[in-house]
Structures are given as structure tokens and as C-alpha cells.
């Protein structure tokens, strides 16, 4: 064989090998976000997407994540689930079947998550979520991991703190959105208030998308409770009710368990939101915030016009957990990653963290994070107290 006859194929093979190696050395791992980007919960989706992009950028700048000799760069792909089961299922179909996504680093809403799980658990796709329902967790959902505190972590310390601040509280009214999240939260809220000696005068429901809240405000004002608990209602809806209650002259303690975005609340309610207690917000510019949180928060203020909160910052923590789990498993196979996630330790935006909650959910799939109670003061989020769950305390001291 003449030299020229085989040098060409050899050269071509060498070039192909080079490309193949380059490809193998650095691949892209798509991470999905399925959250509301329109409607009352849109601020959640926009904030989550931004936090996820910051986390991905940080991981990529630090050289990506390495598994089995390959380096992966993260890429965020977002889908609008409109906070509905239908859109949740549709976005899952698109993510899994069209875009080949194996890791979802943020989804909002119990109903959309339930719709997604039918597909993600069957196909073995990991879903990090901020759903508040208990029914989405358990040993039958081993690919599901929750990345923020839920009522089972928040309500007891949150309500107890409020009761300590207002020992004379005796009566309450609970307003819940009529969906899976609201339905799962309601009994626990009633039970917790009851244990604190607060009688529930009424527990009412409204449909997401409701635009007129005067009737419910009239009812609350006529019952004249010491406090109103807005349960899992999004900030825009709570703002509308608070505005109507202000018109009717009701003055009492305002409790927003799912309260996250003070800016959205203030934009609708104005001064009527003053003094409201929030269970899912945080002051990431305050003294208790970590440097990472302060940096992210400042960036979000600039990019989105509002700061981050407990819900919107959560994809950052999910991505940090995912990176640690991929490196621990030395694989991007979701099945291997989900096996190590319950025991992995990682640095969240709050500090050292891991997964726990087996006593509550029968499976360690709840991210361990501090419970932070905030209040609206002069239109700003002010942190009043924070406490670490026992499991997190043990992990930190370990």
C-alpha cells in the first residue's frame, strides 16, 4: 500500500478522534425548570429561572461537573407550567420526550408536580421541586426531591413565633386556593393553630385566577378574626384581599405562610401589606444572609427589579446538590444520582446542607434548610428569627 493511500484515512480518523475527545471532554447537561412564567405566580418562575442560571454559570466557571472522566457544563431550559396540572404534564412531555432532559432543578405547585411525576418517576428523571404537598413525597417517589421548606417544616415554628409575638390571638380565618397545594396545607394549618389555642372561625376556598375578592373580604371583616392566614395563596392574590380588607377597616394579624415576594405583595396591596408575617420569604441582604445569598440577591434586584426569596433562590441550591451528587455517584445516570442524593452533603446558599425528613415522609428527600420568619416593615422584608431543624443542626455539627 502506498503511503498516501492510508495517510489520508488515518489523518481523517485522527481528526475525528480529536473532535470526539473534545466532545467527550466537555458535554452539555440540560437542566429543566417548569414554573409559572405567566399569571399570579409569574414572579416565582422568573426568579427561579434567574437563580438557576446563576448557579449554572457558577458551576460552569468553576470548570463544570466531572463524572466518569467527562466534564459537563450545565444549561438551563425553562418551561411555563402556568401553575396548572395540564401545563405541568405538557411541560414534562416536552422536557423528557423532545428535549431529553434527565434533571429538573425546579418546579412549582403540587398539582403540576403530581402531573409530572406520572412521567418522571416512570422514566427515571430527577425532579427537584418546591411543591408544598405531602402526597408528592415518599418511598414511591424516589426521584423527587424538595428544595425548599414546606408546611411540615415551616408551620409549627412559624405559627409558634407569631403566637409568641401576639399572645392574645384567639380567633383566625384561613383562606386557601382551591387546588392540591391548598387542600393539603389546610388541615395542617387548622391543626397547628388549634394546638396553639387559636380557634378557626372559617376556612374558605377560592379558585386561582379569581379577580374579585370583595365578597371574601366582606366575610372576613364581618367575622372580625384576630388573624387571617392566607395559606398557599400567591402574593398577588393576597395583596388584592389585603387591599379590600383595608377598605373595610379590618385590622389584625396578617399571616402569609407561602409569602415569598414582598415586592409583588406591596405592588398590589401597598400599605395594606404592612406588618404581614411571611413564611417563605427571606432578607438575603441582611446580617444573617451568606455572602453567596447577598451576591445573588443584589444581582436579582438589578436583573429582575426585585430581590430573591426562599422559593426563587431554591434552584441554586438544587443545582449545588445535583453537582455534589453527580460527582459522588461519578455518573450522570439519574438512577445512580438519585441513589446518592439522600446521603450527599453539599454547600447550599444557606451553608452546609443535605437531605432528610425521613420521619415525616418515610424517605429522606427534603432539603435541610433553616426556617426563616420575616415581616413586611416599611415596605421591606425584615428577618425576625430563624431556626435550624434538628437534622440540619446535627449535620452542621457532624
Amino acid at each position, binding site marked *: 500500500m502506498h503511503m498516501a493511500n492510508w495517510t489520508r484515512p488515518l489523518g481523517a480518523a485522527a481528526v475525528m478522534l480529536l473532535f470526539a475527545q473534545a466532545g467527550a471532554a466537555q458535554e452539555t447537561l440540560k437542566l429543566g425548570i417548569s414554573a409559572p412564567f*405567566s399569571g399570579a405566580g409569574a414572579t416565582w418562575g422568573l426568579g427561579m429561572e434567574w437563580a438557576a442560571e446563576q448557579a449554572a454559570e457558577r458551576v460552569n466557571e468553576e470548570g463544570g461537573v466531572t463524572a466518569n472522566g467527562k466534564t459537563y457544563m450545565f444549561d438551563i431550559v425553562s418551561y411555563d407550567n402556568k401553575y396548572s396540572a395540564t401545563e405541568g404534564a405538557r411541560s414534562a412531555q416536552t422536557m423528557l420526550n423532545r428535549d431529553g432532559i434527565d434533571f429538573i432543578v425546579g418546579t412549582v405547585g403540587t398539582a403540576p408536580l403530581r402531573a409530572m411525576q406520572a412521567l418522571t418517576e416512570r422514566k427515571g428523571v430527577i425532579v427537584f421541586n418546591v411543591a408544598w404537598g405531602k402526597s408528592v413525597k415518599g418511598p414511591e417517589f424516589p426521584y423527587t426531591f424538595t428544595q425548599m421548606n414546606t408546611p411540615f417544616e415551616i408551620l409549627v415554628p412559624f405559627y409558634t413565633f407569631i403566637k409568641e409575638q401576639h399572645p392574645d390571638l384567639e380567633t383566625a380565618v384561613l383562606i386557601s386556593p382551591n387546588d392540591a397545594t391548598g387542600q393539603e396545607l389546610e388541615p395542617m394549618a387548622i391543626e397547628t393553630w388549634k394546638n396553639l389555642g387559636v380557634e378557626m372561625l372559617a376556612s374558605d376556598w377560592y379558585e386561582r385566577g*379569581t379577580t374579585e375578592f370583595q*365578597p371574601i373580604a366582606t366575610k372576613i371583616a364581618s367575622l372580625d378574626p384576630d388573624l387571617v392566614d392566607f395559606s398557599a395563596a400567591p402574593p398577588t392574590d393576597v395583596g388584592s384581599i389585603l387591599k379590600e380588607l383595608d377598605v373595610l377597616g379590618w385590622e389584625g394579624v396578617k399571616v402569609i405562610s407561602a409569602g415569598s415576594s414582598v415586592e409583588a405583595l406591596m405592588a398590589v396591596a401597598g400599605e395594606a401589606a404592612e406588618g404581614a408575617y411571611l413564611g417563605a420569604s427571606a432578607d438575603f441582604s441582611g446580617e444573617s444572609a451568606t455572602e453567596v445569598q447577598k451576591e445573588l440577591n443584589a444581582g436579582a434586584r438589578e436583573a429582575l427589579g426585585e430581590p430573591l426569596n426562599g422559593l426563587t433562590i431554591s434552584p441554586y441550591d438544587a443545582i449545588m446538590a445535583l453537582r455534589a451528587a453527580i460527582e459522588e455517584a461519578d455518573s450522570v445516570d439519574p438512577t445512580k444520582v438519585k441513589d446518592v442524593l439522600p446521603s450527599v452533603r453539599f454547600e447550599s446558599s444557606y451553608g452546609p446542607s443535605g437531605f432528610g425528613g425521613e420521619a415525616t415522609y418515610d424517605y429522606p428527600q427534603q432539603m435541610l434548610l433553616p426556617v426563616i420568619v420575616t415581616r413586611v416593615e416599611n415596605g421591606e422584608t425584615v428577618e425576625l428569627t430563624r431556626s435550624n431543624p434538628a437534622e440540619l443542626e446535627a449535620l452542621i455539627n457532624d
Partner: protein
Amino acid sequence: MELFVQLLANTLQIGAVYVLFALGLTLIFGVMKIVNFAHGGFFTAAALIVTSVVPFATVELGAPLWAGYLLAAIVAIVVVLCLGALVYGIGFQHVLKDLNGSFILSIGLLLILNGAYLAIYGGAPRTVPQVLPGTVSIFGAALTAQRLALVIVAAVVTGGLYLLIERTRLGLALRAVAMDQEAAMLQGMPFKRVALYGFLIGAALAACAGVLMAPINAVTPVSGDEFLIKAFIIIIIGGLGSVPGAIIGGLFIALIESVGGYFFDPSTATLATFILVIAFLLVRPQGILGNVE
């Protein structure tokens, strides 16, 4: 007593916007015999424009809030009229009296409009400061000055529409076309032009509702969709194509929401309206004031 006055005030507040919105929808159906699912798009466009123009006028131009709002209202109504003329010219004039065609066209248009609003404004709720701050008390019922203004303006617009339909040549033409299009054409009435006027009046009514609602509720690219569902319930109960029916239906639905929301809860009240519309479709499908064809 005070409670019932408050519930009545709530009914009027809620009903005012429902009536304006449903009037436009029923007028378009009456004249053109089409179902316009994109009607909510006109409402949303007007409300979104108000959320853009008010900050621009007050911050960039330094205008007082009331002047900024007035300017925003004019811009919003003019833009919606242009949008209405455009979609009529491109689409609706080709599907007059065609229920299936108008159904497909208007659903497609609704998707395009919602997508465009989302792309332009993003999905986050937008707000406008209240032009008339403060609260007023009427016979013990508390309501904001802004809401009171909404009720008054809605009543004036509704009264104006009633006069236009009953006392003007255009109104006569609209009624004639709604009653019998062929007979009206035999009398020399230009059907397509009358249909265009009817469509534009309907769009302007939706725009008015959007302009009035912007300072009261947070506005999103899908704000009109919630009102659209209610408006369909209202015109089915009131009678398709009937202007007085839309007024009665709007206030009736508002009454159910107000009283039902108080004595039960808003979810139950919403459920009751759906049960009511099913009952009407079974027992009196032409609605309260509709005609049997």
C-alpha cells in the same frame, strides 16, 4: 342592614366590569352572529397599555397621575380600535355568520394575542397606582373612590350605548341587522360596514373595561381570559345578542358571587354560576331575554 348594603355595593362593583365586558361580546354576536373568543384580548391590551403609558406619562413627561391616566385611557382605546379594525379586516369579515369559522379564527387569534402580550410585557403582574385614592362610605357600605368611579363610568358608558342603539341611525342599523340581516340589506343597509361598526363598538367596550380595571387589579397577559369565561356565562344567561340581557346577566352573576362568596365561599359561588348556566342551557337555552330562532 349594613351587611346587605355592603353586599349590594360589592355586586355593583363586580357587575360594572362584567356588564361592560359582556355588552361588547353580545353586541358582536348580535350583529355578526359570531362567537369572539379573542374579546378578552382587547380587554387585556387596553389594561396592559395603561400600565405602560401611566408610568411613562408621570415619570418621563412629569404629568400628574390623573392626566397620565387620561392619556393612557385615550391611547389604549385608540390602539384597541386599530387592533379591532385590523383583525376585522384580515379575519372576521370573512367569517360573518359563520359560527365554526369564527370559533377557529378567534381561538387562534386569542393564542396569538396572548403570546404577543407575554413576549412584550412578560408574565409578571403589573400594577397602576390608584388615580382616586381614599375610601367612601355609602349607607354604611365601604368602597374605594376608584371603585365608585368605575361603577359611575360603567353606568354612563352603558347608558350611552343604550341611547346609541335606541336613538341613532347607527343603532337602528345595528338592531335591524341583528334582527334580520337579509331584510336589512334589502332596505339598503351596508351589512359589512354595520358589522364593522358593531365589532369596533364591542372592542371599545372591552377596552373601556380594561382601562377601568387597570388601577384596581393587577394586570397580566391573561387577565382578559377570566372575564371572558364570566362573559360567556353572562350572555348565555341573559340571552345571546341581547343588550339588556347582558346587563341583567352581568349583575345577576355579580350578585351570586357577592352573596355566595359571603355566605359560602368564592369557590362555591363559582361552582354555582356553572351549575346555573347548565340549568339555563337545559331549561331555557335562549336565556332570559334571548329570542328563540
